Every structure is written in structure tokens, then in C-alpha cells.
């Protein structure tokens, strides 16, 4: 089933590219593919049994036996929700791309390939396969930003590519070091087996292996000061790509941190936790400070992502010392934050994109009074914004409170400082709303239409999970719990 | 005797190298190259004559010593042959260049750079 999930978009991409259809047909094919994909992921999620735990839907085949590489896919509680998230965002991304007119076939092919690659990342249980999908996602992203982007798109696309690539270079070395640290018969890239290995004596200091993974994931997440690719990439990317980038690509970093750094190196994680906590605070506050100076709507949202990803790091940092007794509340919060931020920031970018489509500006001072012109879009923005600032009944709140609860007993001061980020979030979200949406309606915007049904559908696809999981998060937390529990056990809980 | 010859060879080699690196005329460079190959041959011949063939150190292979002793001279022979071929090609190139351009100064052959 996971093979189908990972390859449906990829085959869809080939299909879209191969069929020389009019733009409209192409869009419909792409939509059909992502909807089918979403159905698959929902089905997978529904069938996934949280109480049973462990890895499910595992498929295993030798691939390059000489190098010990397997084709090994499967999901556990950690990846299942993220796959669902990717399915959801895929639909939103296609819907929000409805107005793309430039090289439509190529555009949707790349977009679907991107989705498929990310699916692969979440589904892979073999490190090399994981790495392959991890890298595979670069090329679609590069093209999507570079061709369909705006502004300094070349610069941004290249920056994205280089940052990620250099980061993953370290991961690559770490993967190999991990592999060769074990005696010949026991070498494996199988993550499910590696979790149970003793990592205390590797061929290089374990902390270096840990650090290699950390760097790769820190770039992706991103953790300051490795974040500067993100605002540029977001700013210049087309809407759908921003949605995917913020929605799932960043999540790959957090997922990696949880799956590998936390899952395989509990001791190193515990040792690095104070550093992570400090970085998390920096991320949250520094990101928020910068947000408050932005005048470009997308850049603003991008930095808010940086700030919010700090909460993920903070939750993971809870693994220091106290996580075992806390049974991973913080880790759960971090995982949940991955999901919720995916929907929330995805929605923010959808809305920003819709605004840009109409107003052709992202410069906030040029806006104002949009709420009267496009109430649906404004409502979408407000929902996303409020969820982003952690308003209860939206999923953002649940994740953040869990992060705080999980980490406060371990790093009280850091958590308190990071929690202040929530106040800052209120500041920048509401200030932005005030500047962009409210105020007297302007003449120049008087002809702008509100969201079309397609746009509304794109927003709705994301709004539904925000509220559903905000009001009743148990379906999500139970699954995440099943995924985090082994990590917690690894941490000694 | 071995070391003397080797030093002569080293001096010749370095003179040749100097020539290769410092002469402007393509043919002068080719001549310098020949000096380098000569230096190599001097060394090979010296080793062939004065250094103990490996076969002598392995009792079982002693009757094969001749082959080992003459290997150096053989290689030197091939060096001469190959050098001849190289020179032939080099001269062909010089002629081809001389037909197309005024100068066969190596310094002027710098269309390809950076």
C-alpha cells in the first residue's frame, strides 16, 4: 500500500507530463491524482492501528544486496499522520495552482513528483531509500521555484538547493558511518533494526554521527542560523510550492530529528538537549522578532515558520533528562506541531497566494481594507493566523501546549521564553491582519473578486483538519503516541 | 657508479624539465623532452647494469635473472621508440600550426584558457 502511496504521484507526474492535453485537462488529471492519493492516505490512516503500534504495511525487498540496500517501506505512528498531511496538502497545492498558465504540464508533473518524493521520505524505513527520496525532492523544488517563481527566483532556488544539499551531505556521511560501525554480518540500513542497536561505539565518535544527521535536519527544519534559505525560497516560490514547502518539506526535518536523532541516538539527544533547547528559544524569539519587521507577506509567513519550528525543536529538546518521566509529552507535542503547522502554514500560504493572485503585490503597506473586498479570503487568513498564534480549538494550540507541558519541567526558563513567542505571534499575526485586511477599503482593490469555489475548496481542505484536530485531537495524538512510545522507551522511560 | 649515473640522470632530467618549462619554441620544448627521456634511459641503463635483479634474491628464480637484468634496457629501448613516435607527431603538429599561423611560439598558443 505504501508503495502505491509513494508512487501514485510519481506515476501521476509521468502521466501528466506524457499526456499532451490542454491545460484544463491537465489540471483535472493532476487533481484526480492527488485526490486519489488523498483517498489512499486516508484509507491507510484509517486502517493503521494505533493500539497495535510498531511498523505497519511493511514491504521489504532486496534492492542492491551487495551494498545492503533494501527497498523497505512501512509506517508507524510517527510517519502515518505526516503521510496523511502530505496527502491533504497535495490536494490543496493542486487546487491553489489552478491559475497557473505557464507550462502547465511540466508544472503539475513537478508538483506531483514533489509530493511523491515526500511521501517516499515518510514511508522509507531504509536509510538509503530515505536519503534517495530526500534528495529526489530537490529537483522538483528547484524547478518549481526557478521557473514558476517570482522575484529573485534563480537565487532563491539555488540557495534552497545548496543549503539542503550541503546539509544532506553530512547526513549521507553519517548514514554510512552508521552502517559500517557494525560487524560485517550485522550491517544494515534498516531503520527498524538500527533503532535497537547499541550506538555507543561507532567507527567515528557517535556524537559526530548524531551531528551529521542534526545538521541535515537543522537545515531542513530549519534551525537558526541555517534558516536563511527559507525566507528566500518561500518568498519567490509559487503559491503551491510555498504550501508544500512549509507544509511538508520542513516537516521532513522534524521527522528526521524524531525518527533518527531521537529514535536511534537517545543518549546523544539527551546530551544535546540543552543546546537544542537554547536553539529552540533562539528560533522562536529571533524568528518572531524578524517577522515583526517584514513587509512582504510571504516573507513574513516564512519567518513565522522559522519561529514555529522552534517549538518542534523545543519539544524534542524535552528529551533531555526529564522526557522519560514525562513519557514523551514534549516529543508528542513536537510531532503534533509538525502536523498542525503543516496545515496551518499551508493555509496561510494558500491565502497569501490568493491575495497575491488578485492584488499582485505582497507588500503589506500597499494593502489594507481587503477584508471588505474578499471576506472569504480574509476569513481564511484569520483562521490560519489565529491557528498560527495558537488559538484554542485550532490544532495549533494543542501542539503548542503539549510542547510547553512536556518541556517546561525539563527546561523551565527556555520554555517560558519560548512561550513568550506565542505573545509575539499574536503580535505579528494581528498586526498583519490589521494592516492587510482591515482599515478603509481602497479604491484600487475595489474590482478584486473573492475566492472562487476552487480557491475556497483549497482553503477548506486545510481548514477542516485545523478545526477537527483542534477540537478533537485524539485521532492524531493516539497515532503519534504509538510512534513516539518506542522513542521514549529508548530514552529510558 | 650507480649513484653517479643516477645523479647525471637526475641532472639531465631537471635540465630537460627546465627546458620544457622555459623555452618558447615548440621544437625546443620537444628537444628538452628528449633530454628528459634520455635522462630516464640513463637511469634505466644504470639500474639494469648495477642494481641486483630481483631474481637473484629469490633462489628459485635465479636462472631467470637475465630477463630481470635486461628489463631496464628493454624499457629504455621502447622509450626511444616511443619518443621517436612522439617527435614525429610533434613535428606534424608544428607543421600544421605553422601552416595556419605565423608563430609557433608556445606562448602564443593560449586561445584556450580560464
Amino acid at each position, binding site marked *: 500500500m505504501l508503495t502505491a502511496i509513494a508512487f501514485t504521484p510519481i506515476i501521476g507526474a509521468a502521466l501528466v507530463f506524457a499526456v499532451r492535453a490542454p491545460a484544463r485537462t491537465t489540471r483535472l488529471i493532476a487533481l484526480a491524482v492527488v485526490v486519489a492519493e488523498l483517498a489512499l492516505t486516508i484509507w491507510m490512516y484509517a486502517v493503521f492501528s494505533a493500539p497495535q503500534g510498531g511498523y505497519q504495511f511493511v514491504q521489504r525487498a532486496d534492492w542492491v544486496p551487495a551494498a545492503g540496500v533494501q527497498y523497505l517501506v512501512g509506517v508507524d505512528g510517527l510517519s502515518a499522520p505526516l503521510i496523511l498531511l502530505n496527502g491533504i496538502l497535495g490536494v490543496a497545492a493542486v487546487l491553489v495552482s489552478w491559475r497557473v498558465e505557464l507550462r502547465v504540464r511540466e508544472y503539475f508533473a513537478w508538483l506531483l513528483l514533489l509530493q511523491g518524493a515526500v511521501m517516499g521520505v515518510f514511508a522509507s524505513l531504509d536509510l538509503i531509500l530515505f536519503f534517495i527520496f530526500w534528495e529526489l525532492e530537490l529537483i522538483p523544488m528547484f524547478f518549481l521555484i526557478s521557473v514558476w517563481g517570482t522575484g529573485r527566483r534563480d537565487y532563491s532556488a539555488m*540557495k534552497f538547493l545548496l*543549503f539542503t544539499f550541503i546539509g544532506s551531505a553530512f547526513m549521507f556521511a553519517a548514514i554510512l558511518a552508521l552502517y559500517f560501525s557494525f560487524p560485517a554480518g550485522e550491517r544494515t540500513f534498516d531503520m527498524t533494526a538500527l533503532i535497537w542497536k547499541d550506538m555507543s561505539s561507532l567507527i567515528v565518535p557517535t556524537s559526530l554521527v548524531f551531528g551529521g544527521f542534526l545538521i541535515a535536519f537543522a537545515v531542513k527544519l530549519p534551525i537558526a*542560523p541555517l*534558516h*536563511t*534559505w527559507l525566507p528566500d525560497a518561500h518568498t519567490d516560490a509559487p503559491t503551491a510550492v510555498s504550501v508544500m514547502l512549509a507544509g511538508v518539506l520542513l516537516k521532513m526535518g522534524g521527522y528526521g530529528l524524531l525518527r533518527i536523532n531521537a529514535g536511534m541516538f537517545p543518549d546523544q539527544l539527551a546530551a544535546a538537549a540543552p543546546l537544542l533547547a537554547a536553539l529552540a528559544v533562539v528560533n522562536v524569539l*529571533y524568528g518572531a*522578532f*524578524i517577522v*515583526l*519587521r*517584514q513587509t512582504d507577506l510571504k516573507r513574513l509567513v516564512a519567518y513565522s515558520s522559522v519561529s514555529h519550528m522552534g517549538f518542534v525543536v523545543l519539544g524534542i529538546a524535552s528529551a533531555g533528562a526529564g522526557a522519560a518521566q*514525562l*513519557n*514523551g*509529552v514534549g516529543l*508528542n*507535542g513536537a510531532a503534533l506541531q509538525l502536523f498542525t503547522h503543516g496545515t496551518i502554514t499551508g493555509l496561510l500560504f494558500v491565502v497569501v497566494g490568493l491575495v497575491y493572485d488578485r492584488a499582485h503585490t505582497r507588500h503589506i503597506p500597499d494593502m489594507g481594507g481587503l*477584508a471588505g473586498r474578499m471576506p472569504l479570503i480574509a476569513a481564511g487568513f484569520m483562521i490560519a493566523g489565529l491557528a498560527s498564534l495558537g*488559538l*484554542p*480549538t485550532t490544532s495549533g494550540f*494543542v501542539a503548542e*501546549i*503539549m510542547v*510547553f*507541558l*512536556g518541556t*517546561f*519541567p525539563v527546561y523551565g526558563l527556555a520554555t*517560558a521564553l519560548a*512561550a*513568550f513567542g*506565542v*505573545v509575539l505571534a*499574536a503580535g505579528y499575526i*494581528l498586526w498583519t*491582519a*490589521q494592516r492587510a485586511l*482591515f*482599515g*478603509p*477599503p481602497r479604491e484600487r482593490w475595489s474590482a478584486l473578486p473573492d475566492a472562487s469555489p476552487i480557491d475556497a475548496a483549497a482553503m477548506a481542505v486545510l481548514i477542516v483538519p485545523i478545526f477537527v484536530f483542534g477540537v*478533537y*485531537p*485524539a485521532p492524531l*495524538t*493516539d497515532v503519534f*503516541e504509538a510512534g513516539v*512510545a518506542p522513542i*521514549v522507551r529508548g530514552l529510558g522511560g | 657508479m650507480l649513484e653517479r649515473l643516477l645523479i647525471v640522470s637526475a641532472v639531465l632530467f631537471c635540465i630537460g624539465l627546465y627546458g*620544457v*618549462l*622555459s623555452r618558447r619554441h615548440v621544437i625546443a620544448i620537444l628537444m628538452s623532452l628528449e633530454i628528459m627521456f634520455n635522462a630516464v634511459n640513463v637511469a634505466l641503463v644504470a639500474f639494469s647494469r648495477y642494481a641486483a635483479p630481483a631474481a637473484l634474491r629469490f633462489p628459485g628464480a635465479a636462472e631467470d635473472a637475465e630477463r630481470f637484468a635486461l628489463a631496464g634496457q628493454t624499457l629504455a629501448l621502447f622509450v626511444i621508440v616511443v619518443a621517436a613516435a612522439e617527435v614525429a607527431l610533434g613535428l606534424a603538429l608544428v607543421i600544421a600550426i605553422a601552416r595556419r599561423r605565423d608563430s609557433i611560439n*608556445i606562448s602564443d*598558443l*593560449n*586561445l584556450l*584558457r*580560464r
Partner: protein
Amino acid sequence: MLPEAAAWLIIGLPLLAGLICIGALRPWRRGLWPLAGYVGVAGTAGAFALSLAAVNGAMGQGDAGYEPHRWFAVGGRDGFAMTVGVLLDPLSAIMAAVVSGVSAVVQVFSLGYMKKESDAENGAWSDYPRYFAYMSLFTAAMLGLVLAYNLIQLFVFWELVGLFSYLLIGFWHHRPAAAAAAKKAFIVTRIGDFGFLLGILYLFLHRGEFAALGLNPFEIPAILEAAPMLGAGVATWAALGLFAGAAGKSAQFPLHTWLPDAMEGPTPVSSLIHAATMVAAGVFLVARLFGLFEQSAAAMDTVALIGGFTAVFAAAMGLAANDIKRVLAFSTVSQLGYMFLALGVGAPGVAMFHLFNHAFFKCLLFLSAGSVHHSVHTFDMRYMGGVRKWMPATYLAALVGGLSLAGIFPLSGFWSKDEILGAAWGGESAAAPVVFWLALAAAFMTAFYVFRLILMTFHGEFRGGVDAVPYEERIPDEAHHHVHRRESPLVMTLPMILLAVFAIGSGFAANSLVALGPIPAHWFSHFLHEDAPDFSIGVAGASTAVALAGAALAALAYGTRTISFDRFGAPWRFGGRLLAQRFYLDALYEDLIVRRVLHRGLFLASDWFDRRIVDGVADLAGWFGRNGGRAAAQLQTGQVQVYGAAVSMGAAVILIFYLLQR
């Protein structure tokens, strides 16, 4: 006892009403829009009816004893189990009744007041369903807050209350002032909520103690049960954190600045949210967790002192304001200070009693102000005067509310204020004597500004209303409105009359010194399982005297104009400016801290650092990459001998390197 499902319906009915308004009525046919008002009123009224039933059921009993339900849980055994439930006890029942009751009344008033929205040329009815949706949802959130079983559940509704307050303040989002005020309200209260959150986290830090007792550290009854075991240290920090949240929501110093600005919302909103209910949530929170606060003398004193100080401080600002709603807003802040003062000296029942009474008379005052505005289309008292001539009902309502607020015997305000003063007088904490005098001073000022308000608005000569306001000072939307000399419609006056009845009688009737027919003596206190407060004739006399003195001074200054403060010259003008500028606190917060220190300081520096340094380093690395390559390419001169030299150099360097190695 009320079945649990019915208790949930108290929240559910307004919620449903709100969802119908925003989800069903608004997007569809315009013809349905007028229905929104009735839907909203019906939902809230239903909640009110159920609340009354709950009050009835709670009488003589304690907690209704509903078990909480699992919401979600993480981390198994001693991880984090979130439960939700209804905590229906006398305190929440009476609060729910007040909230839903006042809300119902205000929504009825809004049927008339918001009518002008529906008449507006463009947009027609579009804002009407939105308004009632927000109102209903706000009510639901408030009721949810009141009935919350779990501290986090409470926090959830707490935030939602903040959200709807934000939406309602910014209801006219095209007005920059309204949008700014809404944002300010949300952010300032959120600073307080930050403390609230830390308080919750701090409690969770001590989950071990709870676990030892088999309790969940988030459930309110559990907290109250465990409070005595936690010790003063734990209680202090937890209580102070929670109090920070309460202070934010209840606009206590230093987080009070948002409330006067919040008057940018529609007047019924001000009356419901910023007078009667939401701002009382802080008081309710402290009362709800009073068992925790009690454990810490330091926390109690802090609450009392902040309350007492705010009572005076806000009242002082009320003395000089010219905007009728702002006067009332400062008054609200001041009265909330009273309530905290009462809590701080250990009298939660008294605080709740004042809250109860205050809800009626303050709501009434706001509705009166709205009613006046409906006629003169300005809130500036300098352009009013003599309005009583054509608005007798409104005048009477305002008079009743004002007298009650001023604490004139025997109106409801008198009784609760007297109990507060009595509690402070009799309080044993170190802060009690201080806050008693503060309270007394505040009583004086209250009487002064109340009478100033009434006199400036209703008495004397009419000074022109909106027509006299300089054009540029008018509210943009209302720039073209004109004064209509007429009383408000019945749909507006009726709620005022209803509230006036309460403003007169609620104080005496609900907690009377003697039994009144079916109502036993000290019903309110006993209902909350509190001891009846002592009635001291001395304290009562002093407060009445002070209030009368304040009233008299106001009458001399604004009624008969026998004295003029202008005679005091420079100190007066300085004081006036100080008060008009609200002690420059807004300037301090917004201009100095937010704009200069943060926005042009810290944030600018961060942004600069990010662009120049962090990104600069990345770009520099790229620059080095490109130019390093370019520089290395310079060696590629095209000279074959340079290449040969490189080869030789390579050989020589490696050889020499190894020769030096041995």
C-alpha cells in the same frame, strides 16, 4: 439536579446559534439575514433558562458531580491526560446565569441598536448575522469558561473569549481605530495569558504531588483539593501566574490599557463584554481557584494591592475623560479593581456579589450610553447636555445605573461595595488596611465621575451632538449622521428597564440582611457557601458619606457651576493632561517600548542581523565559492608551461613533503 447533557447545552445552545448565524444564515440568502438576531437571542435565552435551572438545582448543594471525559491523552500513566467536563457548582451556576442573562438582554437591545447596520446603504445586512454570530459564540465561550472542569479547558474558552472580544471590538474593521483597538486588546490580554500559561505549566511541574494523591493536575476540583498540600511556595507562583492572566482579562494595572480603547466596538458589545461579563472572567478565575490563592499570603496581598491600586488609578482617569464610553470603561476597570481587592482580602463571595451587581448596573449604563448615541451619534459628552428632555427613559436608566455605581443607598451597588469595604476593614492581611483606604478614595472618585457624566450628558443645555463635532473628529462612518431628537425604540428601552430593575434591587434582594419572603437572608453568600459578611454601620456610613461628597463636588462643578477647577491653574492643567493622557502609560507602552525599543530597536536589529550577518555569511560563502573558483581559474593562463610547472611543482612538493616527513 440538571442532567449533564443539559449542562452541556448551556454552552451548546449559543454555540449552535452562533454557528447557524455564521455558517447557515450569512453565506446564503440575504432574505435570511434578519433572522440572525432572533436566532441569537433564542440561543442565549435558552442558555439563560438552563442556567436558571442550574442555579435552582445547585441551591443547597455543592458540586453537581459530573465526571470529566477523556479528551486526549499522551504518555500513558503519568503523562498528560486531558479531560473535559462540566463543573457545575453554585459559583459557576450563578456566573452562568449572569452571563447568559445579561447576554440575552444585550442581544435584545442589539436587535434595535444594530438595525442601523442593516439599513446601511452598501453591504446591506451583511454585518448583521456576523454580529449575532459573534455575540452568540462569545456567549458560548464565556459559558464554557465558566463551566470548565479542567484548567486547560478553561484556558481554551478563556482564549476563545479573547478571540470573540477581538472580533467584536474590531467589528467595524474598516475603521482603523477599531482594528487597532481590537489588536491591542488581544495582545495585551495575551501578555496576561502568558502568565496564565506559565501558571498552568508550573502546576504541571508539580504533577508529582498530584499523582501522589491520585489527582490530575489540571482538573479544578483536584487543584482545590491538592492546594493545601502544595505549600505556600508552589501556590504563590501558580497563583501569581494565574493572576497575571486574570489581570490581563480584567484589565488590571498594568495591563488595563486595552479596555478604554476597546470602546471602539459597537456599544452593546461594550456593555456585554467590556462591562458585564468578559472582563469579570478574571475575577471569576481567581474566585474559582480561590482555594489555591488562599494558600499564599503573598499572592493574596498582591491581588489585593493590585486591585486596590487599580480601583483608584482607573477612577482617577475616569475623572477627566470626555468620552462617555471611556468614562464607563475606566469605571469598569476601577470596579474590577474593587472585586480583586475583595478577593485579595479573602472574600470571594463578596467579590462575586459585586460582580453580580456590577454586571447589571454597568451593562445598564452602557446601554444607556448606546441609547444616547443612537440619538446624538457621538460619545463626546462635551457635545451633549440636556438629553433627558427627549430621552426620559434612558435618563432614568442611566440615573439608576449611576447611583448604583456610585454606591448610593439602597441601590445594589451600595450593598456589594459596602461588603467589600467591610471585608477590607475586617481583613487580617497586611494589605487590608491599605486597600481599605484606597477603596474609600475610589468610592469618592466614583461618585464624582458618575455625577459628572450624568450632569454633562443629561442636564444643562444641549450642545449640538454630532452636528457640533468638528468634521475631522467624527467617526468616519457616522460623519453624515445627524442628531435625531427622539427616544430609542422599545426594543432598546425595554432591556434597559429590565436591567434597571436589577440595578435597583439585585443588591438588596440577593444578599439582604434579612429574609425577604421566599428569599432567605444572605442568600447569595450562603448559596456560594460563604459566611454572611458582617454589616458595619460605620463602614456603611463612611462609604455613603464619601460617595455623597463626591457627588456634591460634581454637582457644584458641573451642575451649578459654582466652582471651576480652572482656578487651580497650572497644577490643574497638568493634572488634567496627566489624566487625559492616562498617566502616559499608553505612550510608554506603545511609543516607547513597542515602537522605539522593540520595533525600531530589537526587531530592527534582529532583522538587520539576519539580513546582513546570518544571510551575509551564507552569501559570503557563496561569493567565496564563485570567486575562489574564478581566482583559481586565473592560474589557467592557457600557457602550457604554466601547466607543466604545476605538474612539476606538484611532484616536487609531494616529494619534499615526504622527504621532510621521515
